[in-house]
């Protein structure tokens, strides 16, 4: 909560301690350093290949942040977000090729179109929770794969689709990479800004309440379905933008790779590894996972070994670090926090209440 220093009834809040100020300063410094490193990366990259890996990772980050609008706020894990990145890519490409639109306009219009398509999909899939939602999200990708492969007149089918380049051919390969690197970074920045704004808003509080306990949120008056649908559409929009941007950079679309479960699972793994409840979680996850994926693909080439690596990483994260890296670091830092709450004198009832501390989460699980 922001700057809550004094409560109206005169009791001191626990914020505003020196520790918090130091922590905030550290965070700002870290953020600035990270930003400087990102902006300097194209200059530091030794060759075009490393630069292209950078673009790939930035693209992963854009996808993961787009995914995290649904995953992070509502806790609905979609394994099928490749549906929206793929649709974004195809929409952008087709609007340029068949619609004759300017590439950047095509990107925006395409993403808006995907957002519109996401409304009925959201209406259908958000009616169910948990596992059923995941199943439906997977089904979406499989349907789109079937359709895009069969509908060869439009999508180029299995032979793929060439996307016209937005920059003229005079711009050399490394220069292309550099421009697209910054474009992707800008997209990530905008998406993060929107995520941050929602996180602070009352809308965000309602969404997080849905993540924690949907029935309870609804009983407190949150119109849960509407909330989920809105954030779902926002998520589809940003994911489609990321997919379209990738299409413009890569210049070629193939249904098998666009509508692939793997892309969706990358987004999940990245966000989960970084921490879905943190603003920068998906970005951190994208850097770690993106780098590892490129490393494994590079080391083991065409073999399917990178799938094993991906599978093992995902399994380990789910088993041992389901909250992600950033929350784990946060908890570590919090251990050094001087315990502010102990300053306040406790009433007898508080002490009594504390002695009855049980495991409420477990109890609740039983009642479900």
């Amino acid at each position, binding site marked *: 909560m922001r700057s809550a220093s004094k409560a109206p009834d005169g009791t001191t809040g626990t914020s505003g301690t020196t520790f918090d100020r130091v922590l905030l300063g550290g965070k700002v410094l870290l953020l600035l350093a990270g930003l400087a490193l990102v902006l300097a990366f194209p200059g530091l990259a030794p060759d075009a290949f490393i630069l292209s890996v950078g673009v790939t990772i930035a693209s992963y980050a854009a996808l993961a942040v787009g995914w995290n609008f649904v995953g992070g706020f509502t806790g609905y894990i979609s394994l099928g977000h490749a549906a929206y990145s793929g649709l974004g890519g195809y929409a952008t490409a087709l609007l340029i090729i068949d619609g004759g639109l300017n590439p950047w306009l095509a990107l925006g219009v395409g993403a808006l179109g995907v957002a519109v398509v996401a409304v009925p999909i959201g209406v259908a899939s958000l009616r169910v929770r*948990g*596992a059923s939602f*995941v199943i439906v999200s997977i089904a979406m990708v*499989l349907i789109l794969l079937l359709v895009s492969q069969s509908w060869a007149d439009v999508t180029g089918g299995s032979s793929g689709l060439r996307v016209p380049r937005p920059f003229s051919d005079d711009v050399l390969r490394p220069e292309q990479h550099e421009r697209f690197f910054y474009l992707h970074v800008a997209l990530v920045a905008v998406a993060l800004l929107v995520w941050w704004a929602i996180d602070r808003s009352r809308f965000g509080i309602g969404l997080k309440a849905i993540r924690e306990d949907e029935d309870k949120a609804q009983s407190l008056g949150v119109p849960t379905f509407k909330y989920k649908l809105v954030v779902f559409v926002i998520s589809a929009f940003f994911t489609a933008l990321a997919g379209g941007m990738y299409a413009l950079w890569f210049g070629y679309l193939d249904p098998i790779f666009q509508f692939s479960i793997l892309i969706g699972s990358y987004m999940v793994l990245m966000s989960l590894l970084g921490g879905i409840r943190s603003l920068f979680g998906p970005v951190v996850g994208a850097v770690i996972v993106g780098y590892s994926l490129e490393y494994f693909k590079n080391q083991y080439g065409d073999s399917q070994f990178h799938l094993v690596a991906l*599978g093992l990483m995902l399994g380990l994260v789910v088993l041992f670090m389901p909250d992600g890296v950033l929350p784990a670091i946060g908890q570590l830092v919090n251990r050094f926090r001087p315990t502010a709450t102990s300053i306040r004198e406790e009433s007898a009832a508080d002490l009594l209440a504390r002695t009855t501390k049980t495991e409420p989460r477990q109890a609740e699980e039983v009642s479900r």
Partner: protein
Amino acid sequence: MSGSLLLQSLILGILLGGLYALLAAGLTLYFGVMRVVMIAHSAFLILAAYLAWYFNRETGIDPLLSLLVTVPLFFVAGVAMQRLLLSRLRPATLTMMSVLLTFAIALTIEGLLGYVFTGTQRRIQLDYSGSSFEVAGANIAVVKLIAFGLAALSLLGLYLLMKKTRFGQALRATIQHPEAARLLGISTDRIAGYGFGIGLATAAVGGTALALDSTIYPSLHWHWIGPLMAIIVIGGLGSIPGAAIAAMLLGVTQSLLQVPMGTTWAQTVFYIALFATLMVRPQGFFGGRLAQRF
């Protein structure tokens, strides 16, 4: 569509539906005993198919005999998976995290299959591979009939196990009301382990049946998991009869649509049915109390 073609499609649909039903029953078992949606089910199916193919290639013996190895092996693997991996997940997030964990297992299996056997398409050649017989003008391949027979026998075995044995009683009690089952002295953890073992054993049987008449490759499991997931949601998560009925209906529909629409478009029937179900009856058509919250 001519009469004999229609009959042939119908019969093929029933044969296919039988296999779907067996596999969907396995998925339903996992969900029933632990509220886990097992994405890796079809990856294990393909793994079993590869084992049958490898067994046949190395020994030259009929792949059906590989069942003697794969079924116990998969049973043990299922118990181990439940005891060692899934039981470690926090109960509060079990359903969601188990989807991801089993998804990770599926990726690992697919990757390993690709790594060991390469991505080349494989097919078992048997002396009866090409043989078929005619019923009223419809042409039915012997291997498809054997595959159906295997599936039907296993389903019957599963049914008898569930209905007639003490273990089956405990299993059903665990599925319907875990807390009550615990109060009756049933060790639900152990039962859940065995439920997982049996579920995975259905994948072993299904995989062998599949290997008899299909070309297999590592990423084939994605073609199975979608339809199977659709079947269990439509049937109502947790209901074995619901899953079996949905499997039969959809298998037949898919087979009938293949003639006018082609194989690819015919597969969309599963997803159309899935979305229609969600709009009309999100808890599925045969699911009870269980299905509503998942």
